[in-house]
């Protein structure tokens, strides 16, 4: 049954020429391997004759060397093919996930596991397929070799082939469900752990680590059940395989024994027959590869799911002075029929109770989120700052210049404007400190996030509660510096603070996803409900 991931796997195999080399190498090594039992038979017969023949021994050594060297080359080639394919898939998937942008239809943890885990599985497709192919070919070759020794051997052996095929088929159906269940439950445990880790301070302060450990681990029995199912399947397979191989061997040996008795075969040929029977049954030894193939296909499906997701249309940034216009914009239930216009160079504050749609409005105004209906007209480049920015890039300095080609001086200037320069120069390696090693508080991260917006010198600044963790003194300084560093820019500021709203040219007052009113802070202050947004209706 074709899965959506199969097309992807096909393109993975096709895009590299190395699988052909691996195939060629495997052809040589397999040929060596197929000739080896015959050469061994010849050598044993030579030994039994009590006479040393140099050529026979050299031929045996040559074939063995071919097989050994071929295997060694095969290991390196296989690793190269798999790692290149994995890297390609990871790059493609990352590119796609990045282009899907924000908000992503795939949760972060899930996306990471697709990039790290699933790409690794799917990258092995070419090697898995070639291994299966080579095994099949060498099995057929072994049957031919048996026939060349004595046609009876081949007939006896051929009877066992349908049995092997039957074995392979049932296996494919048995494992898929368990493998999928195992992957799902494993993902659930991870997501639960991530939840708990984010709330670690709550857990520590309440002393409920034990309790929460249990909560995280609640799906474990299902995981163990799925795992046990996989082992049981394996056990059944091994049992059948374990029976099949000796049964075939004995059948071949008996046939060969009569051959020896009737003078058709030499004692050495008995060994050759045994060797070819083992080679021919190699397919059965590839059962783990079939599990791997199943897992590969499941992973490829998960990758294809991402790659097949349509990228939402995002209008290009038009050059301009920073005019923002919304007409009857609706986004889910967060924003409803919002119409407003913010002229270039003005300072707009967005206020409203928690959950009234402020962040969504900011995201729409900045072009970060697509809208369900209505029209958005914007021009000018956007600089964003968030309440909780995720700092990205290699070093602290890079995290400020992230996505731009700004130099050290520009980075430093932006940091100065955001009132964070003094903090950064005290870090272990200053601006060169790797992000992971920088101990930063929430307020410091916020100011770096501001610097990141400032450095882009945008026409429009969207500050989504970006100074919420700053105390009012620091906030006032940042505000002043922002006005100095970027004068005359359009500013959209989501805020909870009346002082900020009072400074704005226009206040957009949101209530339950709708614009309840626009005007200056002074005008809106007449409304009792507006005052209640700030004072709690005292």
């Amino acid at each position, binding site marked *: 049954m074709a899965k959506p991931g199969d097309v992807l796997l096909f393109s993975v195999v096709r895009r590299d020429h190395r699988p052909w080399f691996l195939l060629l190498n495997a052809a040589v090594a397999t040929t060596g391997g197929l000739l080896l039992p015959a050469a061994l038979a010849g*050598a044993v017969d030579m030994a039994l004759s*009590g006479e040393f023949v140099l050529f026979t021994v050299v031929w045996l050594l040559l074939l063995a060397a071919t097989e050994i060297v071929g295997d060694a080359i095969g290991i390196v080639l296989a690793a190269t093919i798999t790692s290149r394919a994995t890297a390609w898939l990871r790059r493609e998937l990352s590119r796609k996930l990045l*282009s899907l942008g924000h908000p992503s239809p795939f949760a972060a943890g899930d996306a990471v596991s697709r990039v790290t885990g699933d790409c690794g599985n799917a990258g092995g497709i070419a090697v898995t397929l070639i291994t299966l192919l080579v095994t099949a070919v060498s099995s057929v070759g072994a049957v031919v070799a048996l026939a060349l020794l004595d046609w009876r051997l081949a007939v006896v052996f051929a009877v066992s082939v349908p049995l092997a095929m039957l074995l392979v088929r049932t296996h494919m159906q048995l494992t898929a469900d368990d493998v999928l269940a195992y992957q799902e439950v494993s993902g659930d445990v991870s997501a639960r752990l991530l939840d708990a880790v984010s709330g670690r301070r709550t857990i520590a302060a*309440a002393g409920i680590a034990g309790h929460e450990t249990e909560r995280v681990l609640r799906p474990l029995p299902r995981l163990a059940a799925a795992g046990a199912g996989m082992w049981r399947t394996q056990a059944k397979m091994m049992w059948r395989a374990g029976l099949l191989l000796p049964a075939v061997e004995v059948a071949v040996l008996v046939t060969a024994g009569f051959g020896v008795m009737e003078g058709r075969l030499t004692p050495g040929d008995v060994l050759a027959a045994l060797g070819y029977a083992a080679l021919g049954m190699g397919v059965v030894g590839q059962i783990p590869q079939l599990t791997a193939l199943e897992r590969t296909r499941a992973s490829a499906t998960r990758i294809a799911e991402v790659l097949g997701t349509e990228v939402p249309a995002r209008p290009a940034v038009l050059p301009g002075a920073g005019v923002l216009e919304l007409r009857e914009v609706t986004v889910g239930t967060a924003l409803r029929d919002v119409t407003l216009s913010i002229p270039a160079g003005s300072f707009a504050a967005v206020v409203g109770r928690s959950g009234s749609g402020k962040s969504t409005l900011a995201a729409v105004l900045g072009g970060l989120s697509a809208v369900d209906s209505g029209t958005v007209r914007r021009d000018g480049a956007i600089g964003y700052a968030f309440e909780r920015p995720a700092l990205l890039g290699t070093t602290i300095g890079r995290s400020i210049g992230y996505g731009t080609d700004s130099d050290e001086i520009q980075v430093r200037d932006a940091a100065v404007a955001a009132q964070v320069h003094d903090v950064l120069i005290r870090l272990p390696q200053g601006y060169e400190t790797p992000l992971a090693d920088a101990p930063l508080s929430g307020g410091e991260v916020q100011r770096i996030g501001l610097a990141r917006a400032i450095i*882009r010198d945008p026409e429009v600044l969207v500050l989504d509660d970006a100074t919420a963790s700053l105390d009012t003194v620091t906030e006032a300084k940042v505000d002043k510096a922002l006005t100095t560093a970027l004068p005359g820019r359009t500013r959209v500021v989501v805020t909870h603070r009346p002082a900020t709203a009072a400074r704005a040219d226009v206040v957009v007052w949101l209530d339950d996803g709708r614009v309840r009113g626009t005007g200056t802070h002074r005008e809106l202050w007449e409304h009792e409900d507006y005052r209640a947004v700030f004072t709690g209706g005292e």
Partner: protein
Amino acid sequence: MRFYLSTLAGHRRGVLVLLGWSMLEGIPAFFGGRLVGTAVDKGFAAGNPLAGVLWLLSFAALAVVGALGQRQVFARLGAVVEPMRDALVTRIVRGVLSDPTHRRTPDASAVAMITRHVEVVRDATAGVLVQARALLVTTVAALIGIATTAAALIWLVVLPIVAALVLFGLLLPSLAKRQRDAVMADERTAEASGAVLTGLRDVAACDASAEAYRDVARQVDQQARATVTVAWANALRATVIAIGGFAPIALLVAFAPPLVASGQLTTGAVLAAVVYLTNSVNPALHGLARTTSTVVMRLMVALKRLQEAAPRTDGAIGAETPANGEFVLRDVTFGWSPDAEPVLRGLSLDLRPGDHLAVVGPSGIGKSTMASLLTGLMPPGNGSVLFGGAPVDQVTPAVRHHAIALIPQETYLFTGTVRENLTLLAPRATDEDLVEAAKKVGATPLLDRLGGLGAKLGHGGEGLSAGEAQLLALARVFVTSASVVILDEATSHLDPAAEARVERAFAQREGILVVIAHRLSSALRANRVLVMDGGKPLLGTHEHLLKTSALYGQLMLAWDPTHREETPLPKR
């Protein structure tokens, strides 16, 4: 590693049963070559086909026994491997969640890494149990088999194998190093993609997908190169093992002719020796090479990484009992390290039931440290934090956790019903209690929107705004009987009105309320204010501080720089 072995030892019975069954598996390996040799010697070559067939049938019977053993081994593998994985996951999760340092909070990618390593340990353990065990049983059985059938040739067989194994052992360290490098590269890939994928919003906002892609692609490509380097090392060790496995066969056929000629070796003995080598010893050796170099290395690296992710925590557990519900802080000083500037210096403070303290000060000054000291999460560097007369970090954990509740800025919500989330700290609370608590903190509209207490929440409070998540966290603590409540910027995502409502609700409860203030309006509602500014902390009422502290005045001024009468400071 020790943990791993002790866990395995914990399933000793399972492992022993496994080993018992593998003895069965070794039987065909021990008799296989000999029976084939005898079948030819005494049967087919002697012109007695019946004897030959019978010998071969006994070979078949033994193979059935061996297969039965193998089946049992695999069926019982789950009984060892799955509980081992469960124990490992349990320990890791508990370790991560109980880690008291909070300095290295694992993020999404770290969690993904943990999951991956646990899978490696599971697969590798199964691999080792299957392969290494089979190798041992088969090789030993087969070597004994050779020794009993073709004793004259035993050294030709044993020496190359031993030589190959020694050489293989010598290669192991470099192999291990490369393997470790590859695993590190793997982790860096996970880190890089984790950082970018959890920060997608910011990547989009910075229009930086090109740079984000470059950062990820660099690690991805490095990882690919490291994998190939490992493959070269693996190819070398495979060659060593293959030569070691084939040499005995070549030596055997080369040295056998004179022995056969002199009658020391029969046809059957030569056949038996070759069958032993090709059918038992060689496959086992290849298995060993595969298992040790890849599986065991990965296993060890994964175990080491897991241990780092979840350090063993064995902090001493206090057993003091507080005499009352009062806090007494004397000369408390706290710094993150002896060299660092202290976050808190010489703080003395008494808190009695009914007190409502607000802690204010500039960002990043370490106000949260106060919360950690009061909850006993960290002991003070100098001075004492006494709760009911006992050092708070030494109070019996059950008593302390029951009496003191902390609500941090970052909310903990998990997948489950709203009810489960709200009863986290008060398992015996009734639905009426929960609804009442939600009403008090102003979460009733949220509760209605979600669809009541039975509504399901997704992972990480999916679909809730940060403010809504905070409301649930507040209601969760409100419903407890904690006598000390510490709000560590717990209302930062609420609007001022909602914040005021929450603080008033908590202030009306009996006991002590400490508000690590996010907005200065919190100070106006408190009956005492602690100002933290890096120097000696200032303590007093709002009015007193306005008169005596320039910093406090400045803070208040900045809060309302316009001095518009329309935006007055909230009244007390």
